[in-house]
């Protein structure tokens, strides 16, 4: 698998032509991801871990160890399942870069990026994990800044680099505290962690939330995500959004449920609250944004929030001693991770196809694309309905289980949680409702109505490779929606492997909770919906045929002018929510009215400009950035330019370090 990615990276550089570089490296990436999926499937189906230890490599730090257990296999599978369509998609999507040298660079780094993504869940010791983590950060950074003409890309890259390295520093500190100077393989870390006092474990918990939260995009550490994801090429955005941020979830699960001993219940409360806040903030930004890929990035933040609701719930219930409910939390979290990976890959690839076809990334410049890009539209409709968590697609089973989990939590656990958990129910419901608004807006404004710009009117359907790539996650979304019970038992086994109580969440093809008697039977429901629609069609077919209808201009309450200028736009669609949540958005608007000099009643033109204040970012980051600047200025004073002074600093630093190490002993 890793050899395939390596070969892909090499081929991208040495291939004789840009075209052959693209094909050879993407085929290598595809094969590599297929290997990843097969390995994951093998581990999950056979039930025992696969491992490999290369003690010789990086020997002083414990060597490179690879272990894929069931938890790692789930995430390895996700990486493979999102990487494979992305590689196929890239064949068509970056064809225009064949003539440029940076095309080869993107292919090579994309392969390395996929390799690092596979390496993180497969890491068997701290060293391998951290190296893979850093490799993943570096390769994705290169892909984010791969467009030299874009200022946004460079700025996004800076944010990304800073955030991801701050997170890395937190992780390093967390792992060093856990390992405590002993051996770094996960088994000895686990043994050492159980001897740590609770104050140190709490420190590790906080550091891990910062480290993994900044990768996953927990609010307020999400700041890089809506900048970096749109800046990368779309197939990379898809992998970043569907797989890379999920590795933050993987890290949190690995640490909290495997390496660390069970913590107190309030950890779960913190994570749950962070999850709900992240979900609501993410969806509110997503519903108001008009950049096709940025709104999807915000929606990724929302879904990460929902996933962390599961993580937090599991921690909370384990802390209070309800092992079966904790299992449910893990299953919900993993199921939503898988589901989100499927539909977000689809949506990012679809958004890329639309951008490819119209040469614009703003929703406001689309419209009527359903006629120009009929197949992309079908895929995007599937993606949007999954995003909206509507049955029978795959967003719904995980949302349903989230609700059931929270209801069971209120019903069966301690009464201290009587406000926290109902508020979480409300938060998840609000998120689901707003996600539906966002999905309807995304699909409706992009594909329906009249084209708003010449670019939209003359858009081209995506090349065949891109459509083929979208078909795969679309099928996966439908399959996971109709038969979630195919994966749910496997995910429950992951929870048992983590030492939690076994729980059964399905009966046959239906999701079923024996404790509360609630069931969801997607296949039968989908059948009933289809049957009811077909029956209705049969009943009215005589009345709606071509002969009994005629096409005409839209009626529009009798207004004769029907132009795209009068259409609802993405901004106007979200306007009511902007008013309802004015306290969150803090919108500023500027209305400029130019009147005729004769009378102010003759208006010549009206200009409107509205912006949303990203106060969440200002509150947290403006002070931090200012402080860093101040410190940099102070540190700058050291740079006197005199070599003697620099030479004097060297021994001073050495002495200081020596003193520090003796003091630490």
């Amino acid at each position, binding site marked *: 698998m890793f050899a395939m990615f390596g070969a892909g990276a090499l081929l991208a550089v040495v291939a004789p032509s840009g075209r052959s570089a693209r094909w050879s490296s993407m085929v290598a990436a595809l094969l590599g991801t297929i290997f990843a999926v097969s390995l994951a499937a093998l581990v999950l189906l056979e039930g025992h871990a696969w491992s490999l230890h290369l003690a010789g490599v990086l020997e002083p730090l414990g060597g490179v160890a690879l272990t894929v257990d069931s938890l790692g296999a789930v995430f390895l599978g996700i990486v493979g399942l999102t990487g494979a369509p992305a590689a196929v998609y890239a064949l068509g999507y970056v064809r225009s870069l064949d003539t440029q040298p940076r095309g080869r660079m993107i292919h090579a780094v994309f392969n390395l990026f996929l390799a690092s993504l596979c390496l993180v869940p497969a890491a068997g010791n701290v060293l391998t994990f951290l190296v893979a983590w850093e490799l993943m950060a570096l390769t994705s950074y290169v892909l984010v800044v791969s467009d030299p003409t874009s200022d946004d890309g460079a700025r996004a890259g800076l944010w990304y680099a800073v955030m991801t390295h701050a997170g890395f520093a937190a992780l390093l500190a967390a792992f060093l505290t856990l390992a405590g100077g002993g051996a770094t393989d996960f088994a000895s870390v686990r043994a050492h962690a159980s001897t740590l006092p609770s104050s140190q474990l709490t420190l590790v918990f906080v550091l891990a939330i910062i480290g993994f939260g900044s990768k996953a995009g927990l609010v307020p550490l999400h700041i890089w995500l809506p900048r970096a994801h749109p800046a990368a090429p779309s197939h990379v955005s898809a992998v970043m959004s569907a797989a890379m941020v999920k590795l933050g979830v993987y890290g949190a699960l690995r640490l909290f449920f495997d390496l660390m001993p069970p913590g107190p219940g309030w950890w779960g409360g913190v994570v749950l609250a962070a999850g709900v806040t992240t979900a609501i903030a993410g969806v509110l930004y997503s519903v108001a944004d008009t950049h096709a890929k940025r709104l999807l990035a915000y929606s990724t933040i929302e879904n990460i929030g929902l996933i962390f609701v599961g993580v937090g719930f599991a921690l909370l219930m384990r802390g209070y001693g309800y092992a079966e409910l904790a299992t449910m939390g893990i299953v919900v979290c993993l199921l939503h991770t898988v589901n989100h990976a499927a539909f977000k890959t689809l949506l990012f690839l679809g958004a890329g196809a639309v951008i490819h076809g119209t040469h614009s990334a703003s929703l406001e410049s689309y419209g009527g694309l*359903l006629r120009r890009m009929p197949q992309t539209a079908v895929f995007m409709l599937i993606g949007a309905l999954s995003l*909206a968590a*509507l*049955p029978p697609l795959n967003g719904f089973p995980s949302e349903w289980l989230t*609700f059931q989990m929270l*209801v069971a939590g*209120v*019903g069966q656990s301690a009464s201290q949680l*009587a406000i926290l958990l*109902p*508020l979480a*129910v*409300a938060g998840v*419901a*609000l998120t689901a*409702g707003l996600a*539906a*608004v966002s*999905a*309807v*807006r995304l699909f*409706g*404004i992009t*594909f*329906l*109505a*009249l084209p708003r710009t010449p670019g939209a009117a003359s858009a081209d359907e995506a090349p065949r490779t891109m459509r083929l790539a979208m078909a795969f996650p679309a099928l996966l979304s439908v399959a996971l929606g109709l038969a979630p019970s195919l994966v749910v038992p496997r995910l429950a086994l992951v929870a048992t492997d983590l030492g939690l109580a076994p729980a059964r969440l399905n009966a046959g093809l239906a999701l079923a909770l024996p404790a509360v*008697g*609630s*069931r*969801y*039977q997607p296949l*039968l*429901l989908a059948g*009933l*919906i*289809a049957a*009811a*629609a077909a029956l*209705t*069609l049969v009943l*009215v077919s005589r*009345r*709606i045929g071509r002969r*009994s*209808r*005629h096409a*005409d201009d*839209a*009626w*529009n*309450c009798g207004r004769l002018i029907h132009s795209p200028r*009068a*259409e*609802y736009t993405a901004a106007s669609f979200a*306007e*009511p*929510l902007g*008013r*309802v949540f004015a306290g969150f958005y803090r919108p500023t608007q500027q209305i400029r009215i130019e009147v005729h000099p004769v009378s102010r009643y003759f208006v010549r033109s009206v200009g409107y400009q509205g912006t949303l204040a990203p106060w969440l970012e200002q509150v947290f980051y403006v002070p931090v950035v200012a402080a860093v600047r101040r410190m940099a200025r102070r540190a700058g004073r050291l740079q006197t330019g005199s070599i003697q002074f620099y030479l004097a600093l060297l021994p001073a630093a050495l002495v200081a370090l020596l003193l520090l190490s003796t003091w630490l002993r």
Partner: protein
Amino acid sequence: MEQPLVVALQALLLVALGPAVVGYVRWLKARMQGRRGADILQPYRELRKTFAKEMVVARSTSWIFHLAPFVLVASTTTAAMLVPVIVIGPSADALGDLFVLVALLMLGTAFLALGGLDPGTAFGGMGSSREMTIAALTEPTLAVSVLALALTSGSTSLGAITGGLVETPGRALGPGHVLAFAAFFIAMLAEAGRLPVDNPSTHLELTMVHEAMVLEYSGPYLALIEWAAAVRLTLLLTLAVNLFFPWGMARSLGPMPLAIAAASFAGKVLLLGAVLAALETRVAKLRLFRVPELLAVSFTLALLAAASAVFVR
């Protein structure tokens, strides 16, 4: 074999009764406002007339416009199958629970909103945007009300909730149950598009929500949408009476229990319909941007219901 038949027949009953319930509320409203009003069968006549009309389809539409009415009717009918109307039976619970029902209604709303956007008119977009906004803001109330019901009955399945209440009527006096009903009733007004959230009998440009969304539909499609809206109202009224006051519902299929159940169902729906008519006569439509305040009230009630249900269990 009996159980699926019961489910299908109850859904059919809701589908058939839908226009009559709308007609009844309209008739009662007219009487309260001092008019004579058309009789309760008028909606059926209107539907027959609309079905027979020729359809005008805007040139700017796509297949989504044609698909939307069918998805709406199908999802509403499927949602109707989950509702215990006269008989409390376990079979519908095997399909899905209250959360599934709410999601099925949302599926119809989302497709109708897409259908409203499709012709590319200003009104369609306005209606879609408003309808989706209201639907999204209603979700938390509905979910927390379901939670409160689940806490008193131990399940989110409709059959289990109604069955549990019939067995231990004392639960209905609990604070959780009463507050949840109040919250659910407000959310129901929003979901069904009734006053003070939306006015079903207006075509005034600035105030309409649902009507703006379906403005471009005509002929058979319009009839399907109107019918689905009527079924949706009936379904929600049935939910309100059967989830909170299920007494009289049949637990077996004998002729006597069925007759009692049918009579009590009719009585309860007529009563709640009268409350609805009285309310719609009394209150004016709220400004769109005041609606969230109303929903916030209902959300607070739902939250109180859930919290108190935990403490009195």
